[in-house]
C-alpha cells in the first residue's frame, strides 16, 4: 500500500526558475485497486507518479510504502523501484538492446536474479503484453510503434511489480495500437491482480477500466472517487479543461429532457442497460 502525506514538490527551489508542481497532495492507494489519474497538461500528474517509486524526492511531506517512509536512510529505493514499476510516457524511447528479449531482461537482471528466473519472467511478461515469439529475437527498433511500446511495458512488468504505474500509455498511437495496449493493461490487471495506476487524457479509456479516478488540477487533487462520482461533476471538469465520456453527456442530456434515468452513465454498456430498463418500464 502506498500512502502520500501532504506531498509537495517545487522544481529548482530557491532560484528564479522555481516552479511549484505539487501542493500538499495526500493520497491513499490500497493494494489491488485500478486507479486513473486525469488532469490537464502541467497539472502535476507526471511529477506525482515519479514520487511513487522514489525517483523524485518531495520538497515537503512524506511517502510511505507498506508503512515505511521511502526516504528513510535504510530504505532501499532500488528495491522499491522493482515493487513500484513505472512506465514513462513514450517508453519505447528507452529501448536500447539488440533484441527484444535482451531488452526485457534488463530489469530482472538488474535485480540480480537467477538466470532461469530472468528468462521465465521475460517470457511471461512478453506473453502478457501479447508479443508473439517470432519477434523475440528481432531488434526492438524494427518493431511497430505499438509493439515497441508493449515491449517497453514488458520490460517493467518482468520485474514483477506490485504496483504498476503507466504514464499516458496510449499517447501517439493509432486506434489499433491503442486497443492493443489497453487490452494488455487489462490482462495484466486480471492475471496478476496488482495495483494499476493509469495516467491518461482519454476519459473513455479511464471510465471503462478503473475503480477510482483522481483528478489533478494545479498540483492538487481536485476530485477523488469512483468514475461516477467524479464524472457527475462534468460541468466543473469542463472548466478545468477536461471532459467526461460522451455517454455521460448523453445520459445527462436525456435526464434534463425528462427521461427518467436513475443517474448519469460512464460507460456505453451502462448507458445501454439504463435506457433499456427505462424503455421496458
Amino acid at each position, binding site marked *: 500500500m502506498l500512502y502520500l502525506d501532504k506531498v509537495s514538490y517545487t522544481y*529548482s527551489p530557491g*532560484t*528564479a*526558475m522555481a516552479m511549484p508542481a505539487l501542493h500538499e497532495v495526500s493520497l491513499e492507494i490500497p493494494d489491488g485497486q485500478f486507479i486513473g489519474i486525469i488532469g490537464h497538461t502541467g497539472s502535476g500528474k507526471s511529477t506525482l507518479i*515519479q514520487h511513487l*517509486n522514489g*525517483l523524485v524526492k518531495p520538497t515537503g511531506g512524506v511517502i510511505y510504502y507498506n508503512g515505511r517512509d521511502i526516504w528513510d536512510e535504510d530504505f532501499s529505493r*532500488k528495491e522499491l*523501484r*522493482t515493487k513500484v*514499476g*513505472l*512506465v*514513462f510516457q513514450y*517508453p519505447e*524511447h*528507452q*529501448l*536500447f538492446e539488440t533484441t527484444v528479449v535482451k531488452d526485457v531482461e*534488463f*530489469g530482472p537482471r*538488474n*535485480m540480480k536474479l537467477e538466470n532461469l528466473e530472468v528468462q521465465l519472467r521475460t517470457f511471461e511478461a512478453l506473453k502478457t503484453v501479447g508479443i508473439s515469439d517470432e519477434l523475440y529475437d528481432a531488434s526492438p*527498433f524494427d518493431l511497430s510503434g505499438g509493439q515497441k511500446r508493449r515491449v517497453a511495458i514488458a*520490460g*517493467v512488468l518482468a*520485474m514483477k511489480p506490485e504496483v504498476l504505474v503507466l504514464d499516458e500509455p496510449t499517447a501517439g498511437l493509432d486506434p489499433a495500437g491503442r486497443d492493443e495496449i489497453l487490452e494488455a493493461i487489462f490482462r495484466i490487471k486480471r492475471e496478476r491482480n496488482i495495483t494499476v495506476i493509469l495516467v491518461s487524457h482519454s476519459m473513455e479509456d479511464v471510465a471503462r477500466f478503473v475503480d477510482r479516478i483522481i483528478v489533478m488540477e494545479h498540483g492538487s487533487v481536485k476530485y477523488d472517487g469512483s468514475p461516477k462520482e467524479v464524472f457527475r461533476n462534468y460541468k466543473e471538469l469542463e472548466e478545468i479543461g477536461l471532459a467526461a465520456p460522451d455517454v455521460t453527456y448523453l445520459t445527462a442530456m436525456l435526464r434534463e429532457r425528462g427521461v427518467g434515468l436513475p443517474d448519469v452513465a460512464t460507460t456505453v454498456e451502462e448507458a445501454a442497460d439504463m435506457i433499456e430498463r427505462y424503455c421496458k418500464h
Partner: protein
Amino acid sequence: MLRDITIGQYYPSGSVLHRLDPRVKLFWTLLYIVSMFVFNTFLGYVVAGVTLIVLIKISRVPFKFMVKGLKAVWMLLIFTLVLNLFMTSGEVIWQWKFLKLTREGIRTAVFMGLRLFFLIIGSSLMTLTTTPNQLTDGLETGLRGLKKIKVPVHELAMMMSIALRFIPILLEETDKIMKAQAARGADFDEGKFKDRVKALVPIFVPLFVSAFRRANDLAMAMEARCYRGDVNRTRMNPLKYKQIDRIAYLLQFVYLAVLICADKLLAPLLTKVLPML
C-alpha cells in the same frame, strides 16, 4: 542532477544587463577576456574583480548559481593552481623531495587561479543574461561584414542557435532516460569503474536514437517550409542600439582606461610604498 550544469544557461531576472543589446555584451565579454591578459599587478586584479562584482550585482543573478557552474571546470582550476605552485622557479620557501614551493610560484598560482576564475565567471555572466537566440542574433549582426568575403555568417549562426537550442532538450531527454532506466533498476553511481561505464550504454543508445530522430524531424520541418535562410529574410525584432547600449559601450572603454592606468601608472607608485606587492 543534470540541471546543475549552468554554463550556457539563461537566468531570467530581468535586470539592465538582460536588456542590453547582445552585441554590446559580446563585445564587453571579448574586451574583458582580452583585458585579462593586459594587466599583471595586484591593482589590476582589484579593478577587474571589482568590475565583475559590480556587474554581477547589477545582473541580479545569485552568485551561488554562478559558482555551481564552475563545478565543470573545477579540475582545470586545481590543475592550473598545482602546476603553477610547484613548477615556477624562484625563491624556495618550502621543499619536500622534488616538490619545491617558491614565493613566485604562490604569486603566479593565486593570480592564474583568479584570472581563470574571472574569465569563466565573466563569460558565464554573458550567457546567463542573454538568451541563446539573442546571442546568435548578436553574432550574426555583429559579424555581418564577413559576408563580403563569403563567410556563411547566417548559416553558421543558424547552426549555432540550433545547437544551443538543443542543449536543454537533450539534457532533459537524458534526465528522462536516466529516470526511465533507473525505474528498471539501473544503477549509475555504484559498482566498479567497468560497471559504471557499462551502465552508460542504456542511456547513450536511446539518447543517440532520439537525437537523430529530432534532427531528422527538424530537417524535415525546415524543408517542408522551404527554409532558405539568409537571402531577403527580414526580422521581427531587428537589433537596434539604444541610449543604454551607448552608455555601456562607453563604460567598457572607461573600464579599460582605468585598468591600464591602475596597472601601468598607479601600481609602480604603490610598489615603492608597499614593496611586497
